[in-house]
């Protein structure tokens, strides 16, 4: 099977999964014990039965479930996730603006994570079972074990609040959003703190994976061949070994996109970052189930597609894969 056939097959397999995801999303919300109509209306309107009935009809809540699902799916396929009464805006446009904020955050976390994790993982593998390896191992587990929201609070405590007391001005803002048009410095001071917190756990996982994968690869005979060829040790490690070691690491990175999205929900809240996680949280709090539904479906789709991309990348990185 050629790589492109593999890509097509793998993409087609996505369709049933996404259908399942949409069905589950739909059912979670529709089977919720709380009445979506009552929840979305202000209390005085919810008390008036005619308003409630009108809205129920409008939302087709009186139809059988499969009809409701079909209508909903049809709308979703047209990128129409409905209307958010709590935010007075179309869910699609809410998702659009907040997804961009989360994308920037995830991008920086990803970069920070990879920059820290891959070199440390390689060093840890080369210095296997020395004190360097042990320290990085415990540090990595520390990174996985830290509650991100608490680290975020501690970061604000030290670099914003204490810093202000000590030096008269905070090093980082205690939260909020900035764009590049606010100036690069302002932008980075806003985005780097949440990105660092998100990147820590991500880095820890990628680092562990890099290490164990690298340890395995370093015992391979082709590494010995490279040395026998007179390849410089740096190239033996960073080209011959790492290129192979990264194959499973990339898979883990794909799965950890979910980790980044999980973290985003909490970290965005701490730093008041107007991303998709915070939007989801706000919508859950205000029982805005239509919005919740749209966001969950969107996040799950991004997650599933990201895993597809990683799988295809895997096929590109490992020439053997497409023939299996």
């Amino acid at each position: 099977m050629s790589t492109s056939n593999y890509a097509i097959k793998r993409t087609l397999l996505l369709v049933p999964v996404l259908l399942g995801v949409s069905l589950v999303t739909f059912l979670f919300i529709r089977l919720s014990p709380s009445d979506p109509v009552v929840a979305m209306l202000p209390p005085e309107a919810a008390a008036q039965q005619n308003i409630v009935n009108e809205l129920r009809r409008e939302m087709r809540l009186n139809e059988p479930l499969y009809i409701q699902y079909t209508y909903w799916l049809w709308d979703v396929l047209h990128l129409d996730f409905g209307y958010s009464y709590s935010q007075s805006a179309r869910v699609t446009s809410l998702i659009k603006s907040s997804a961009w904020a989360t994308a920037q955050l995830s991008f920086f976390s990803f970069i920070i994570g990879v920059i820290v994790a891959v070199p440390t993982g390689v060093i840890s593998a080369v210095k296997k079972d020395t004190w360097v390896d042990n320290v990085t191992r415990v540090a990595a587990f520390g990174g996985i074990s830290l509650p991100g929201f608490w680290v975020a609070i501690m970061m604000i405590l030290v670099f914003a609040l204490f810093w202000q007391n000590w030096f008269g001005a905070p090093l980082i803002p205690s939260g909020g959003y900035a764009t590049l048009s606010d100036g690069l410095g302002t932008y980075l001071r806003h985005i780097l703190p949440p990105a660092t917190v998100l990147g820590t756990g991500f880095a820890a996982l990628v680092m562990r994976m890099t290490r164990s994968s690298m340890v395995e690869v370093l015992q391979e005979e082709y590494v010995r061949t490279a040395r026998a060829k007179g390849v410089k040790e740096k190239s033996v490690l960073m080209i011959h070994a790492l290129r192979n070691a990264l194959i499973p690491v990339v898979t883990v990175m794909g799965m950890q996109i979910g980790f980044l999205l999980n973290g985003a929900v909490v970290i965005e809240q701490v730093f008041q970052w107007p991303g998709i996680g915070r939007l989801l949280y706000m919508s859950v709090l205000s029982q805005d189930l239509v919005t919740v539904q749209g966001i969950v479906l969107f996040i799950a789709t991004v997650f599933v597609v990201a895993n597809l991309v990683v799988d295809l990348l895997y096929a590109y990185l490992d020439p053997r894969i497409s023939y299996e």
Partner: protein
Amino acid sequence: MAIDTKHSENRSVVDQVGSRVRWLVAVYRRLDLSAQVSFWIVAAISVAAAAAPLITPYAPGEQLAITADPALKLHPPTPANPMGTDLYGRDVFTRLVYGARSSLAVGLLAVGIAATIGITAGSIAGYVGGWVDESIMRVMDILISFPALVLAITLVGALGSETVITILPVLGELLASLPVVGSWTSNNIINVIFVIGLVYSPQIARVTRGEVLRTSEEEFVEAAENTGLSRVRILVQHILPNSMAPVLVQSTFLVATAILFEASLSYLGLGVQPPIPTWGVMISNGQGYLPDSWWWTTFPGLAIMVTVLALNLLGDGLRDEFDPRSATDGGPN
């Protein structure tokens, strides 16, 4: 894998218990230093949680500012209140110790639920195979398609103020019969336990399925099939006990993850509700009183970190011991 169930019938109960203990001691001795230290940390936290009233003179809800000294509101650490007091004059250390109860209970019960669902689904999928396997694993694939916390927040949000018990009364009765937890049945903590358990069941299912598939190939299973034992008995008595080591290792990591998860949910106000003390809520409440009352947020965070780190390091040590093949799987998730 040292779990041996085949030759144990002939021995007395005392012998069996004795050999189990000796086996556990042997396992402990083979763990590396960090896992051994972690074992004692986990043990200490568990004992403290269980014996909370013996460890601290105060009750978790006791407002010292009212019962003792009005100055004890947001008071910094002193020998009597080693981690200070909070806005209501409650002793932070006391609430930390009682908070360990909710953390460990959520961790263990959620993993119990995940294991019940996961082992059942995974072993049926692996042992029966065919379309049953396909359908179970596709459902698991769909559940895994949602980032865990996103799914959990949605579920907790969808449940709203209802608890799972109104939907699943059997589960409620079961939980109500447990110590400590029994009094929590009307609290959202039940939803948290259930949701975390559900969200992480696919991971257990996947590991179980893989192990069952592997074990089914072993000769003793074939031998058992030839003796005419029923398939259910073969699965429960022969295959499952020999497939459990990686599942147990995975479960240790999941307890750590579940504790972290509960803290996040509670921090967001979607988890454990007052009056049950929990680390996540403490951090969330204390956050507004930074930087002056730093102790209110700092100590609960450290408690989460130490507990979760110890569980993860213990899990890592157990994995080296029981499941070295999976060392490249990347650890907890």
